[in-house]
């Protein structure tokens, strides 16, 4: 109401003049719903207006175009260019990988090696010629990252270098870095994150004793968590910042992976009868506390907060199973846990919605 009155009341006779209303500080509180005329056009509100009969089908369709919520006919050439460029790069690079993996006997190893090297060089030349930070250049760099992986796999397979699988992914990660740096694009960095996860994940199983300080599986979960937390922190600080719709991809992927590994660790710890891998609850507590601070206080990210809430619900349910398993009738406590999960998830949804309505300072 305050928003409604102060912004509009004085110049428009459809609204009351309400200078007597004291406007509270709303920077940390949910904002009241403003009147429609001055409120921002959003997809949900447009849909609701259409359902309530304020817009017919043609007006609704055009309104979304005017507000930039759906493409106009004039936008389609650019959208199709993007779709075709990225799609062709992905399909051609994948086709190359499949072709090399087919191990065609008609084609000698040097010819295949030459083909892969030519693909890498071609991608590099295209990226340089088209500029690596344009759409076409980014498509070329993505294809180049995939071709580099195929080249490494081919070398390892053909020449029997004795390298372990983790070394393939580690080398791929290192060689993908220049491409990702050149493209400065979240999807390219997401491939680097995936290969780094594979490299570390495969390495820990055969790592020296010092790196398996918790036991094999527990150390694997803890170290994978730490890798992704570090990747998330780096992505937040130095990651791509283009407002291109995908710039949050990298920190979100990294933090979701970190939360997933940490949650798997704490669930395993709770269900373990000896409760001896004490580092897992410490890692989980640090991840949960850090994410709350980072995405509730520092930079609001409702997707990560929703995942955070789901993780807590899982942990609470698992802890209840562990505690109640020793006492009482299982049927009774299962009903209790179901009720707690229902209650907590409903609370979490309300909490996330409330944060979404907060006025950004």
């Amino acid at each position: 109401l305050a928003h409604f009155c102060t912004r509009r009341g004085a110049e428009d006779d459809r609204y009351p003049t309400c200078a007597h209303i004291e406007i509270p500080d709303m920077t940390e509180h949910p904002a009241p719903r403003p009147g429609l005329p001055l409120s921002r056009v959003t997809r949900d509100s447009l849909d609701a207006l259409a359902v309530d009969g304020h817009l017919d089908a043609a007006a609704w369709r055009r309104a979304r175009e005017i507000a930039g919520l759906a493409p106009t006919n004039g936008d389609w050439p650019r959208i199709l260019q993007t779709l075709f460029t990225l799609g062709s790069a992905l399909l051609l690079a994948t086709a190359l990988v499949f072709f090399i993996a087919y191990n065609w006997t008609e084609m000698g190893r040097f010819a295949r090696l030459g083909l892969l090297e030519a693909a890498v060089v071609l991608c590099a030349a295209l990226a340089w010629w088209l500029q690596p930070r344009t759409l076409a250049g980014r498509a070329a760099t993505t294809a180049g990252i995939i071709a580099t992986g195929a080249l490494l796999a081919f070398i390892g397979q053909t020449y029997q270098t004795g390298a372990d699988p983790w070394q393939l992914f580690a080398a791929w990660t290192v060689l993908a870095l220049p491409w990702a740096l050149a493209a400065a694009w979240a999807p390219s960095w997401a491939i680097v994150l995936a290969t780094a996860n594979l490299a570390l994940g495969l390495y820990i199983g055969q790592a020296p004793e010092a790196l398996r300080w918790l036991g094999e599986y527990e150390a694997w979960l803890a170290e994978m968590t730490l890798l992704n937390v570090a990747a998330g922190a780096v992505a937040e600080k130095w990651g791509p910042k283009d407002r291109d719709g995908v710039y949050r991809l990298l920190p979100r992927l990294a933090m979701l992976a970190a939360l997933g590994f940490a949650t798997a660790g704490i669930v395993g710890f709770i269900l373990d009868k000896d409760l001896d891998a004490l580092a897992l609850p410490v890692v989980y507590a640090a991840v949960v506390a850090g994410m709350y601070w980072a995405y509730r206080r520092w930079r609001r990210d409702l997707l990560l907060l929703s995942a955070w809430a789901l993780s807590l619900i899982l942990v609470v349910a698992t802890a209840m199973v562990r505690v109640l398993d020793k006492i009482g009738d299982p049927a009774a406590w299962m009903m209790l846990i179901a009720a707690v999960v229902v209650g907590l998830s409903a609370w979490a949804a309300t909490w996330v919605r409330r944060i979404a309505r907060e006025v950004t300072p």
Partner: protein
Amino acid sequence: MGSQDREGGDAMNYDELYGQLAAEGYTTQRQAPPIAAPAENAPWYTRVMLGFAGWIAGLFLVGFFAGSFVLLVKTLPAMLALGLGLCAAAAFIDRRTRDGDVVPQLALAIGMAGRTFFTMAVAEMVGGDDTHVAAWAIVGLEVAMFVALRTPLHRVLGVMIGASALYYGLHRIGAAGAASFVLAIVLARLWGDEARWRTNRHVHSALGALAWGLAIVVVAWPLPSFFLKEATQATRALETAGYAAGLMMLAFSMARRPGNGTIAAVVAIGFLALAASRAPGVLAGTLVLVAGLASGRHVLAALGVIGIVGYLSVFYYQLDQTLLVKSASLAAAGVVLLAARFLVGRFVKGGKP
């Protein structure tokens, strides 16, 4: 989006929007109606979180009923009745929801437990050789639940279960491609005709849930390698035809006044379908991606991208085609897209990146 219009809707308010709509003749009102702004729906990730939590709570409820009523669970007709009773209770509770999240979550958990008992009982009753009959029973239950429920999230989950059962049932009787064909057509029809049902107060919620549920299933179903291993050429042809027809339907609905551009799009889709006929999952993802781009829903478009990348990962392990055939199909599809890119850039106004 919006080269001549607003970018992202960030700066525009409803008074400005109504002014422009009136100037273009879409409405007679020059200013927005003086009503309160509608409340925003829960974001998609909150609904995903609620869906997971509802499923977990449902599993605990299954444990509760299985432990409390042992005889009910040991007698198949009784277990069937328990499942149906729980589904009915879920629908009853769901229809009484007015506001908030607790009651719909409770209904969701009860509904998931009911479906579990129903599926277990029916699968046990029909035996291992006639599992398609169990699939038809699940489809029937989900159709009834879809009509009875009100909450979008619960409906979306029901559509996913029902559509998956349809895929499975048709696969078991040797008509796996038929499900892909039918669901692709329905999906394209829904997203292509979105303006009509979004503005209909009686069906908008139900059809919105159907559109989202089908999109998830169309993208997810080509992924399981179990089904890919048994894919025949006829299955792939039917799937390809369905996805291509869906893409053409979307092209026509987006064009509004079909002309040369629409014909070019249909020809391009035809070439793409021929090239990717060995990899229909690529077309399934493309269908959802284009639907998402056309409706301006980035989450739907991202779902299509995830579907394409996920399918390519699984496609590698498909055993009924050689890697050479798969490589040729993907390369041909890539070349078609590359050619289309240059044609758009060369001949379409505004096509320069």
